[in-house]
């Protein structure tokens, strides 16, 4: 059986989903693990929904099949819900707790479900790990390290085919000197956020 890891990353345009996917890809190259990342840009830039897929190991396709994600990492609760097609009972859904209400709710009369309801629905399909990334990032020293918190949580989930240190090292190479320390803190706090 070939070893494959499929991660689906999602969120809102501007939240850094593509950056996070890119960092995972770089970490895989560093760890000498096969990797194929897929992203959709374009109109997603203007506050639209964004999805990236990262596949690692012995993979040919940049996209996973439905119901086969090992992790669904979401920077926003309803975006996890939108991409529920990728999960199965064993999938770990790691999602930020803080909603970003789309304008279709205010203007188009659409409903944003209560976060508790979203979490209830997500838990009925997969293993849910809500993370208050904004608060953890603030505690670590800067709100902008939110995605580092989420990547820390992902690293702690145990699905990555390389050690968490490889991902941390990749992140630190990417940030300016003065932000290295708080990113390290944020990553470590994110790792703790998912452990029970």
């Amino acid at each position: 059986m070939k070893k494959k890891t499929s991660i689906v990353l999602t969120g809102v345009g501007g939240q850094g989903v593509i950056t996070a996917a890119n960092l995972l890809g770089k970490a895989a190259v560093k760890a000498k693990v096969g990797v194929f990342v897929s992203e959709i840009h374009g109109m997603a830039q203007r506050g639209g929904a964004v999805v990236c897929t990262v596949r690692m190991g012995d993979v040919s396709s940049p996209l996973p099949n439905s119901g086969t994600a090992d992790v669904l990492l979401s920077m926003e609760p309803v975006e996890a819900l939108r991409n529920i097609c990728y999960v199965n009972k064993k999938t770990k859904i790691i999602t930020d707790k803080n909603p970003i209400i789309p304008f279709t709710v205010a203007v188009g009369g659409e409903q944003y479900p209560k976060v508790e309801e979203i979490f209830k629905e997500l838990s009925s399909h997969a293993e849910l790990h809500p993370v208050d990334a904004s608060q953890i990032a603030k505690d670590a020293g800067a709100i902008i390290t939110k995605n580092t918190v989420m990547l820390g949580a992902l690293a702690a989930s145990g699905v990555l085919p390389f050690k968490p240190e490889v991902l941390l090292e990749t992140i630190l190479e990417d940030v300016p000197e003065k932000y290295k320390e708080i990113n390290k803190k944020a990553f470590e706090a994110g790792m703790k956020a998912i452990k029970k």
Partner: protein
Amino acid sequence: MVLMMSEITQENPGKQILLLGNEAITRGALEAGVDVATTYPGTPSSEIADTFSAIAKEAIRQNKDPGFYFQYSVNEKVALEVAAAASFCGLRALTCMKHVGLNVASDTFMTYMYVGCRGGHIIVSGDDPYCHSSQNEQDNRYFALFGGAPMLEPTTPQEAKEMTRIGFEISEKLSLPLLLRTTTRLNHARGPITLNALQPPRKKGFFKKDPLLVTVPATARARHPVLLKQLDEAEKISEKSPFNEIITIGKPKDFGVVTSGVSYTYVKEMAEELDLNVRILKLGMTHPIPRTICEKFMKSCSTLVMVEELEPFLENQFKQLAYDIGADVKIYGKSTGHFSRLYEYTPDIVADAFSKIFNVKNPFPGPTQSALKAPRRPPSLCPGCPHRATFYAVKKASPKDTVYPTDIGCYTLGKELPLEIADVLLCMGSNAGMACGFSIATDQKIISFMGDSTFFHSGIPPIINAVHHNHDVVITILDNRTTAMTGHQPHPGTPYDGMGRPAKLIKVEDVVKGCGIEHIEIVDPNKIKETTAAFKRALEFKGPSVVVSKSPCILLEVQRKRKAKEEIQLYQINQEICKRCKTCIGKFGCPALYFAEDGSVHIDPAQCNGCGNCVQVCPFGAISAERKQ
């Protein structure tokens, strides 16, 4: 994350780095010593050119020679012509564009094949199955067939780099420009790339005069048979190309799959997952197809499955081949209903078709369904976008049933609630041409919209048309000083070029005046009352009028303020004055404004870009600048 340009320009042959498909194409061109690169930006191709631009800017900043010349041309046709001239001088050239860009460049493209190139020339087409960010999903492989261009189709970023590098050699050998046909899923995929050595560019060429470059009818008649001969040569290259290969899965007898592009990645993985015993003919050079290889493959198969996104480009050629050689083979694909001509493929689609064709179990669970509905999250005009203010003013100024032809750019998003100010859109520049037509066909008022980059691209001829025929239309140019939608590329209205060097800025209003427009309004859309009045005057004017609505893209403005350490003024709503009339949300529609659970209206400070236009919109004066703390 911004890719460090030093990473993409490093030597280190053999080293592995992670690149976006588009960045890989740029790297491939650098490895081939490209001299001239041109483009008009368009998703999903933009990052190819943006990478050239970033490399050139960084080099020039450091007083170094980038080694190549790069330009964001005024449109795709001009981009192709600029690069073709470089090729005629013996230089290596690359031109990239989105699929519909090749429609714009097609006049040049078709006859370019007759005269052929001198230095290698790669034309990259970024096709967009599923229309992720396009107005259609046309399959540009037919352009290769139509014009007679050799064509390569990569499956991975690594192959995209290699096909670009080797594509220059093929192009030069055949003296034909080569079409590198990509799709969004490749352009925007990241994968490991193994670096090859960088080849030094030639830099300057020499134009050797040749009467056969002048395509008068007699020359054209002489060139057409030459093109057909060149294509025969191209087929010989295709027969030997390492990009056409056969991959064996399991212990195959006589089942075969033919595929190309990103579809191959799904085919390979699904064939393995479904434990199929098949041989896969993966075609990388898809024009001309290697007929001998294909014939041999076909003869060895009782069943052939054709897997290609969009049109049955290969499928029809294989059917023709089966007829020609009298092959006894069952061909499955689009014509048998197993695959669609629509949208992108996925591993699920391929697994499902394979399980039906080969009568095996599909091991995948299929999509998990949610009982809870997620609200839609389409892209929208940014908070503080000046287009919103223009649109709001237009709606106030225009009578019922006014027709609003729109164009390609961020302002297309005006289609969404609550503005709903986009009635018809075909392609770049179509707004003003259609405005002319509407003015003949109906007595409704016509106000059309295009951005500044679109104006320079293809918006000028229809304005001249409106002047000459005295069409009673209002043509709006949303002048935000950038090509915003595709990532803020410069255009002739910016004071710098794609290499970051100072460039002559061309004012929209000067051009419009030169076209003969007699009624020109120049407005700052952030002054909503004045803008409304200007549109009213333009509507009253009998004949063609132009409104130039000038205000920089808010994203650039915020960036500028942050850099200059200028404060971004935020706004707040006085809950005691607010009557919850919903004008700010329900009519203006700024996404920074929202209803709290109790129905009160608030401004999200994290989203507000500080344009202050909501202050002008509020009928009760409930919105004001936030007191600084």
